[in-house]
């Protein structure tokens, strides 16, 4: 067993887990953060995307122990009690999701993209989210929502105090 302490959504949390435990399983099974989804569990679908120290990662491909001492942001940390993040709002407004299972991963990838590049072109969005698969939608409304959220965030940036 290894002891892992991560700063998840601004809260320091510790768990003792078998060494093969992935960050995704740690978040879901030990911390009950089921917003990050397990789809393929081998890094192909992107449904498990979270942000570790500012970078979008497939949490199913990162060992929990590798995240020790680092900052992890999940979908649960994006909204406050009474307010969705502008990306989430845009996804709601554009009805970008259907079954919704890929949604948290897509939104976290979009967040990481917009943190680095506040005004991405459509091609840059497609490149950045090429690893976030969706079986339902056809993606177009996701791209529009990300563009819309980018506009809003450029006017009024949102600080997440994590």
């Amino acid at each position, binding site marked *: 067993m290894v002891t892992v302490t991560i700063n998840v959504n601004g809260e320091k949390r510790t768990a003792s887990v078998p060494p093969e435990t992935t960050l995704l399983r740690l978040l879901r099974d030990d911390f009950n953060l089921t917003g990050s*989804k397990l789809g393929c569990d081998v890094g192909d679908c992107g449904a498990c995307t979270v942000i570790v120290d500012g970078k979008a990662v497939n949490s199913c491909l990162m060992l929990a122990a590798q995240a020790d001492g680092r900052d992890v942001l999940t979908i649960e940390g994006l909204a406050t009690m009474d307010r969705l993040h502008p990306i989430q709002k845009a996804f709601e407004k554009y*009805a970008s999701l259907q079954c919704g299972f890929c949604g948290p991963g897509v939104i976290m990838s979009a967040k990481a993209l917009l943190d680095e590049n506040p005004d991405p072109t459509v091609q840059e969005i497609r490149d950045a989210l090429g690893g976030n698969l969706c079986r339902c939608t056809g993606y177009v409304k996701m791209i529009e929502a990300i563009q819309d959220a980018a506009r809003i965030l450029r006017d009024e940036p949102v600080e997440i105090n994590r």
Partner: protein
Amino acid sequence: MTIPARFTEPADTTVEAPPKAKRKAAVRREVGRSIPRLESHAKVDGSAEYIYHLRLPGMLQGKICRSTVPHGRIVRIDASAALAIEGVHAVITGEDIRTLIPDPYYGPAFHDQPILAIGKVRYVGEPVAVVLAADLHVAEEAADQVVVEYEPLEPVFDEVAATKPGAPIIHDSLRPAGMFPDLQYLKGRSGTNVALDARVLHGDVEKGFAEADQVFENVFRSRKVVHATFEPTVSLAELNGSNGLTIHTSSQSPSYVRAEVSRLLGWPENRVRVRTAFLGGSFGAKLYIKLEALVAACALLVRKPVRIGLTMEEEFYTITKHGATVRIKTGMAKDGRIVAREVETWWNGGAYADIGPRVSQKSGFTAAGPYDIENVSLINYAVYTNDPPAGALRGFGISQIVWAYECQNDIIARSLGIDPLEFRRRNILHDGRPHATGTIMTNAEIDEVLDRLSDRMHWDVLFDHGSGPVRRGRGLAIGFKACIAPTTSVAVVNVYGDGSCCVSCSTVDMGQGSDTAMAQIAAETLGISTETVRVIHPDTDVTPYDMATLGSRSTYHMGNAVRLAAEDARAQLLRIAAATLQTDIEELEYRDGAVISRSGARMTMRGLMLARFGMQAGTVIGMGTFTPPYTKPDPRTGQSPQITPYWMLAGAAAEIEVDTETGRIRVTKLVNVGDVGCAINPAIAKRQLNGAGTMQLGFTLFEEMRFNEGQVINASLADYKIPGMLDVPEDLSAELVEFPHEHGPFGAKGVGETGMFSVSPAIANALCDAIGVRIMELPLTPERVLRAIRESENRPLESE
């Protein structure tokens, strides 16, 4: 590169003009609004409920040990090494299941599939044993330690070869399930791999060919593909008191699961409770029995809650789309009219029938296309092979059939020198004319679909095919489907003491937006706002029977049941008010939680409850049941005056670029047009068309399960690519054709599958338009395209 503005849809609050209704022309407030899904907040903040998240106190996790041979007898199963691993609670085999369920075979068409293999395995990946442990990792490790020895039998994989004399027989005998009324004609059989041969005979096809000026004959094939839903298939079972069982499952058919698990256990249905939540995609993968019977049996054997969730790899070994071989022969008159068509289709159903016979028969009877043809013969064989089982995948076989007739129609049109659009116009099956089954076409807007395609593609404008290594082409195709019949939906609408309302129904929201559509229908009927309606998710202890969420049937069937239930509740409220106000019901209207009379009198919900219950609390329950009429087809000729409640018409058109040096196709424009009757929620309906179009784009360009002796060699999303953001055409659009169906709820028909039908032939026809090369087999991979190009240039590539 930009996304064109034409994709934008009406703002979310727009009230679209009501379509040309044949009913009373009330102004609609709720139906026709493009409101966001009711659950959209929960889906963007990560809190939406999926069964995959569920953990039960004290539960065991199961890992399935699967067959490694495609066809063989089980000589022995040795679980001793697995049981020796610390933390393993039990290893369950087919013989263990038999101690609980003496006849553990299930299936919606035939009782052919054992809960765990008994005596024999019929495909690589068939469940043979289950290891149960509190820790999933322990169960996974132990599953690898279960030793199974097989005596191999000769396998057969090809659907045509499996029907030939001397082919290995996969099932010794077949027992029809007798559950669904549309499958009552299935017969017990033995000594054959053909589970069903379904025929439609119309006119005299031999005479038609004899009189034809020209006859065309081609064979088209589709390979097996997979649903690849993102929420893995998952089921949990727990004991419920001393004699009951609760199954939590990612299922599209909770009512069926209750009935089938009860039948297996020999229990009354009221002892089995089945509940679902949102499904993370489904597309037909999560129908009938998948893991439910297995977790139920395990939970009863070990007297603990049991959960089994599949990995993405296991999904490839659970259910697939049918591969199909379609031989299509068409007789033409000089004037470009089709005079005879004969279609023979072999459906590769894999090792267990699942719903294959329905796929074969239902898609099969549309195999001549939406065309007016005097002489038709259609034969469909549902065939067992040693592949993983095939079932429903968004269209029940329609796209395999449309692939054949729409590719061939282009071949014929080009050969006769007729524009492909004009060729279709000349042969359309118009309303009022008999389809090959004898059913008269009604409410089928195929002309309008063609007109919209033509407009969107600027079909009459000369098209630039390019020069140099990258060539351009455009193509179109149309297709249709008959909605399944006969089926029933039942709904309950509950109006509470404060006027708020819940809809109870067993329709499963798997991403298609059914919760929102049902809420809109209830809200429209009750004169309240959609956002205030809550839809209760399927729980067979609470929600009434529904056949299943499949085949684009829910909006029409459950929509009608919800409308009837809401009308019933409204009528009860009006009766209460009429008695109290001593006025005629006709004088009254229910709206926004109050009854208002023409004379201006008003009764609030408080008053209605006081009048009915003597206090301010209570419930008014409305019920609605909907079963559309249906006439069983003649088993010999397939003739029926009423084969379906409605037809779904679809068209797609594509512009593509093809790199003649690499064979790679890039779809630059994809238009999908669907005849939806009336859209309950236009934005959601369009997203269904675009989502389906994108899925079929994957099936057209690159998705293909690859096998080696029955083993899937690309069973992961790394090796089996589905469309990503980079694959979506720059110009992807959808258009709704809205003429209200006379019996649909507010004129609506189904739409979930419509966008799948025509995409593949539209792209293949565009390929032929670009470079004159015709490919008869899906998918159109760069390799297949390049081989065809080199073949046409008489300098073929070396074979593999």
